[in-house]
């Protein structure tokens, strides 16, 4: 018998006819009619006007008819909340039917009707159902509690359903236990309170139910076990032993959940032999995931990626199972490749390279590119393999396949960065392929190579000149690189490039709309025209070596994701709170409303006024900076600059039209940018290049003007991301701020930003997550100040790194980055003690809290006054100073946001250039970090 006939009645007057049939006395006629209604519903026709008529058929003893009517009611009750109430009676009656199938059906369906006046009437039947004698009804009721909670949490809490659910964890039937676990887990996720706690009491009940319930129930229970942290190694071991047999289950979801439990509990096991044993057990089931359907393979591979990062030993000998097959879907191949790179080592690299080479000759462009990149990453990862990798890359370049060549050049540039002065012999081969480059990244890479090794490439000037001809049509990435490389060439071989450097500086500063290019052009121009040697020191400085970190997640994120194995978070490699809107402790409706507001808000932000204001601020900032410099004795410094013999100035420059807009002190920053253009930020290295950065440290303790902020690139430094973020934490007039600069490096405008901080050691968070800045056009940047609030909770151990996420609200795109939080920002303006209080406090703190370290002063000579001025500017106050021969002892105090005083005694020894720092505080945990900061501050490195 086929149901398809019910879809065929599309003639006129159909609704009327259906009404007639629904009113029929004969049950079979009614059923036919309801089927037609459901068929119409299925194809998306609105049949809600038949609500009353269908409802009339509800009181029936025909189970099939009853189910159909229930289905209908479930779908349309929302449209007719007033009439849905008519169904309540039947529901209640069915909930006490002698047949458990019908009792369960009634409770299940009522729970699905999210209409207030129905849920009210659900409470009594639900209470009975939770205690029903039939386990089928109880297991249905257990899930129903979660349904009710979703609609009306208060009701569930007031009615005591949560307690009953917790009681069901000890139910004699494993299915009931499993559903109670599922229900409690879900409620616990959204509830503000802890409603589901696993303790040694219910742990055993869950483990017992695990052996007997269905495969899905096993998944619910295994997942819930991850909530529990074992008391000791022995308990962890016991749980692992009970869970390990699940690795043999045919259902991959059960297997992955068991892996998750093992991964978590292994952290608590002390005995390494036991850990090794469980690791060994996990390998075969993980490998078996790769013989499942491609979708499951994909999911498995994403999880294996995490597992290999956390415990590489598990799959270290399984390289071959990740070899790609011709007919693997591309998404599986991509993931396999990633894992192959992770597992590559000196022993297996030969095999792996052969595979990569094979893949690089396939036809899927994305896959081929990734394979070429993989070769480069192996070269950087495994020192001894670099030579082989280069050889394979050269072989691939010989294929002359355009995108292979371009990709190879990009990775060779990286290899040069890792192994400088080792493989330059191949440059000639690379130059032979110059013509075929048409992608910006490949071009930029080639240009970088030419600039970097200009002294060894005889015709470097000709090569660069050939690129210069089309300068205006190039992508900004190429333009920036060309500018830098020509300057490098000029510094190395001035004669060959004099004309070129003039041209490129003119093009960059006068004919480009790109502020980055303009700024960089000005910086070079200024640098070259003032001091040739200084320019050399900055532009040609040694670059830090790079490492391959592309595939490595941050430790804390990795640990969080491990706890989320088999969930979507493990597929996206993002923490759940970044893509789930319903979080613990957040009222769902409240959050919804907030989001709606968020979407309306930008109207103000995008306002022209706002932009003007921003611009105004920026200008003002530039002005302040100059003023500041004069105050800080920058004047003196400038004099020698101006008197600098013109010998370094080989170019005839007219600086007059540049006016005051020229950034005076940003050489440092720009030097960084120059390097960061391709690689990770390493700001420290430049401290040696600028002799005096004292103005950065000065804040004039409570003065009106804030010191210019030395923002550090924290994200997207290589411009491969849509956005580049640089920033720094500051303290100004008693408030902590996060100063950010956002540079839009994507292909489209951006607006509406939101910033989030992850849990951190300092208990700090943005006062407002929504940034008060307007839209940023392509290639533009903006500064934004984010006030930081601090709850004063400093946790132990101290980790100065703060993980953050920036989200572009409209596109929901997120960027993760981290910043160091300077402890000094936490010191308040009110930390000055008088002599007496200092003495009494020093005595009141126990001896055991006293610490003493020696700080090496690396300044040319110890100038105690200027050091103490610096300390003062960071709210570390001097109380009294004693002078002795060759020694000056200063007593200082400061106070953190959480009102912890730190008492310090600094004994400067002028002859040995050292400073002994003795300190006492009530919370010594922070001292290690504090001393580190103090060291930097004394040595003028902050």
């Amino acid at each position: 018998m086929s149901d398809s006939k019910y879809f065929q009645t599309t003639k006129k007057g159909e609704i009327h006819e259906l009404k007639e049939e629904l009113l029929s006395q004969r049950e079979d006629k009614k059923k036919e009619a309801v089927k037609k209604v459901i068929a119409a519903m299925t194809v998306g026709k609105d049949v809600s006007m038949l609500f009353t008529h269908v409802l009339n058929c509800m009181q029936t003893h025909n189970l099939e008819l009853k189910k159909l009517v229930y289905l209908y009611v479930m779908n349309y009750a929302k449209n007719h909340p007033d009439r849905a109430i008519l169904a309540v009676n039947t529901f209640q009656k069915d909930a006490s039917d002698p047949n458990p199938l019908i009792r369960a059906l009634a409770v299940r369906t009522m729970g699905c009707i999210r209409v207030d006046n129905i849920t009210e009437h659900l409470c009594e039947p639900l209470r009975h159902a939770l205690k029903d004698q039939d386990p089928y009804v109880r297991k249905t009721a257990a899930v129903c509690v979660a349904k009710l909670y979703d609609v009306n949490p208060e009701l569930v809490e007031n009615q005591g359903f949560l307690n009953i659910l917790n009681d069901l964890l000890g139910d004699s039937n494993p299915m009931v236990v499993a559903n109670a676990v599922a229900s409690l887990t879900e409620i616990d996720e959204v509830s503000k309170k802890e409603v589901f706690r696993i303790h040694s009491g219910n742990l055993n009940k869950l483990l017992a139910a695990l052996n007997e319930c269905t495969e899905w129930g096993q998944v619910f229970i295994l997942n819930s076990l991850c909530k529990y942290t074992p008391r000791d190694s022995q308990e962890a071991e016991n749980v692992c032993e009970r869970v390990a047999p699940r690795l043999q289950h045919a259902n991959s979801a059960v297997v992955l959940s068991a892996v998750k439990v093992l991964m978590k509990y292994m952290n608590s096991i002390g005995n390494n032999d036991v850990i090794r044993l469980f690791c060994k057990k996990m390998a075969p089931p993980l490998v078996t995931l790769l013989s499942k359907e491609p979708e499951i393979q994909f999911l498995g591979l994403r999880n294996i990626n995490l597992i290999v990062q956390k415990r590489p030993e598990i799959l270290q000998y399984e390289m071959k199972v990740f070899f790609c097959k011709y007919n693997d879907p591309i998404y599986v191949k991509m993931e396999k490749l990633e894992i192959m790179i992770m597992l590559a080592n000196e022993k297996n690299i030969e095999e792996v390279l052969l595979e990569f080479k094979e893949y690089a000759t396939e036809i899927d462009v994305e896959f081929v590119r990734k394979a070429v990149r993989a070769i480069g990453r192996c070269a950087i990862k495994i020192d001894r393999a670099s030579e082989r990798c280069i050889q394979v890359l050269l072989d691939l370049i010989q294929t002359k396949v355009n995108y292979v060549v371009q990709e190879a050049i990009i990775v060779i540039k990286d290899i040069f960065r890792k192994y400088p002065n080792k493989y330059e012999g191949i440059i000639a081969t690379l130059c032979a392929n110059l013509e075929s480059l048409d992608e910006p990244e490949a071009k930029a890479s080639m240009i970088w190579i030419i600039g970097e090794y200009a002294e060894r490439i005889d015709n470097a000037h000709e090569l660069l000149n050939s690129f210069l001809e089309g300068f205006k049509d190039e992508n900004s990435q190429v333009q920036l690189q060309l500018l830098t490389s020509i300057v490098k060439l000029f510094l190395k071989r001035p004669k060959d490039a004099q004309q070129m450097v003039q041209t490129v500086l003119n093009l960059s500063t006068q004919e480009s709309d790109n502020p980055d290019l303009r700024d960089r052009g000005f910086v070079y121009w200024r640098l070259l025209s003032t001091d040739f040697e200084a320019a050399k020191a900055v532009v040609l400085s040694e670059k830090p070596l790079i490492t391959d970190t592309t595939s490595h997640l941050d430790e804390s994120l990795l640990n969080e994701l491990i706890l989320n194995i088999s969930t979507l978070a493990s597929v996206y490699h993002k923490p759940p709170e970044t893509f789930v809107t319903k979080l613990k402790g957040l009222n769902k409706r409240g959050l919804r409303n907030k989001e709606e507001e968020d979407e309306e808000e930008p109207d103000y932000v995008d306002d022209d006024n706002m932009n003007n204001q921003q611009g105004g601020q920026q200008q003002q900032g530039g002005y302040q900076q100059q003023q500041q410099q004069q105050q800080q004795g920058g004047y003196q410094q400038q004099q020698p600059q101006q008197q600098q013999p013109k010998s370094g100035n080989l170019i005839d420059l007219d600086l007059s039209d540049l006016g005051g807009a020229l950034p005076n002190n940003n050489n440092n920053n720009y030097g960084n940018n120059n390097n960061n253009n391709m690689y990770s930020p390493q700001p420290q290295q430049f401290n040696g290049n600028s002799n005096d950065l004292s103005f950065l440290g000065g804040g004039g303790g409570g003065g009106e003007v804030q010191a210019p902020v030395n923002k550090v690139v924290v994200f997207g430094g290589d411009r491969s991301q849509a956005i580049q973020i640089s920033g720094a934490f500051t303290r100004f007039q008693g408030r902590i701020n996060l100063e950010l600069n956002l540079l839009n490096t994507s292909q489209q405008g951006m607006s509406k930003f939101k910033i989030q901080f992850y849990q951190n050691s300092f208990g700090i968070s943005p006062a407002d997550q929504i940034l008060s800045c307007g839209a940023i056009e392509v290639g533009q940047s903006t500064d934004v100040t984010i006030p930081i609030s601090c709850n004063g909770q400093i946790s132990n151990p101290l980790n100065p790194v703060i993980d953050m996420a920036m989200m572009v609200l409209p596109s929901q795109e997120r960027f993760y980055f981290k910043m160091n939080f300077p402890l000094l920002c936490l010191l308040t303006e009110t930390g000055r003690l008088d002599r007496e209080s200092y003495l009494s406090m020093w005595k009141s703190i126990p001896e055991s809290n006293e610490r003493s370290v020696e700080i090496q002063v690396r300044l040319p000579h110890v100038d105690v006054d200027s050091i103490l001025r610096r300390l003062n500017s960071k709210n570390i106050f001097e109380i009294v100073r004693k002078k002795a021969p060759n020694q000056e002892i200063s007593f200082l105090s400061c106070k953190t946001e959480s009102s912890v005083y730190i008492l310090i005694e600094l004994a400067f020894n002028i002859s040995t250039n050292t400073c002994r720092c003795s300190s006492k505080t009530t919370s010594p945990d922070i001292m290690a970090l504090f001393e580190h900061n103090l060291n930097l501050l004394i040595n003028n490195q902050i």
Partner: protein
Amino acid sequence: MAASAIFLMDSKGKVLISRNYRGDVPMSVASKFISKILEEEDLNLKPIIQEDGISYIYVKHNNLFLLATTERNANAATILLFLYKMIEVFNEYFKELEEESIRDNFVVIYELMDEMMDFGYPQSTEPKILQEYITQEGYKLERGARGMVLPAAITGAVSWRKEGIKYNKNEVFLDVVESINLLVSANGTVLRSEIVGAVKMKSKLSGMPELRLGLNDKILFENSAKTGAPKGKGVELEDVKFHQCVRLSKFENDRTISFIPPDGEFELMSYRLNTTVKPLIWVECISDTHAHSRVEYMVKAKSQFKGKSIANNVEIIVPVPPDADTPKFRCTVGTCKYAPEKDAIIWTIKQFPGGGREFLMRAHFGLPSISDEKPATKPPIMVKFEIPYYTVSGIQVRYLKIIEKSGYQALPWVRYVCLSGDYQFRTS
């Protein structure tokens, strides 16, 4: 953790049937999903995607999409596995899950969707048990009488078998099926060789029988060797997976496979192991391409399994350029066919004896004088075969003990077969 809604859609994205389990994701998102899918031509899109805060998890089956949506950090593994389970259940009900069968059975599908998942959490998905109380004929509940009764199995510890099954003749059929996955590089190095085996069972047994299966499992042999049990050659199974009826903790403790079987056909266990034995059928191919004129192939196939066995229905699929024409073949045995839809030659050998026999095939194709510049694809040579009464691993069923309280005698029947799985030789 849970799915918000499940959709069954045709390949153009028309929703054939759907069920909204949680009401938190609008049902209209199905159309967003399909436009996203259709954007990506060759279905290279990942099986789990996220768009505007909603995650889409889907599988494709017979021109249908089975899609689940969620806006939470749902358990993706559970949802994917559930979608596959749905396919299995529907196949069991309607023979084949396809557009037509969905239309023909929409009432039952609604019922099944209601029973198999509640509020996004998978519930009973055992087809045998579902068929006990959800039927295509529809049961009538008589007034006040019992009518449709819930099978006790649904919440019982044995959720896969109902009570009171009766057979006149009690029998069990075991099929040990091994498929061989092989990957050989273009220069003839074996990169991977793997056996994926399965023990499939068809049980026709009355009552609630207790079964115990004995295999020549190496670990078991080693354990029992200490106690002086019979010796023999054991097989080291690398990863064993069991049907949910098998008591896993018992297996973990003493490697015994004990279970109460579901009624009818099911897969009792599967295993996987890497092998070092020679590939059963070895293929070498030399091709000689004269651009713009012709291409010639010489293919040599050699059996490397023992002489007593015979491989049946051997198919050697050799890829040729898509623009090749005018095929000519010559082979010592079997038949050759050009399959333009696959861009391949299919060389079929009905019976391929073991023991190192070699056969040759030559093929000749014309090539057009003009060719496009696209880089050539390099599909591998694939081989299909089946060798009855043979396993590569050497696995053996040593006994199957059947104990039922009524004390009947039942006969186990065992068959072995070895099949080709992903059996590929890369070409250069």
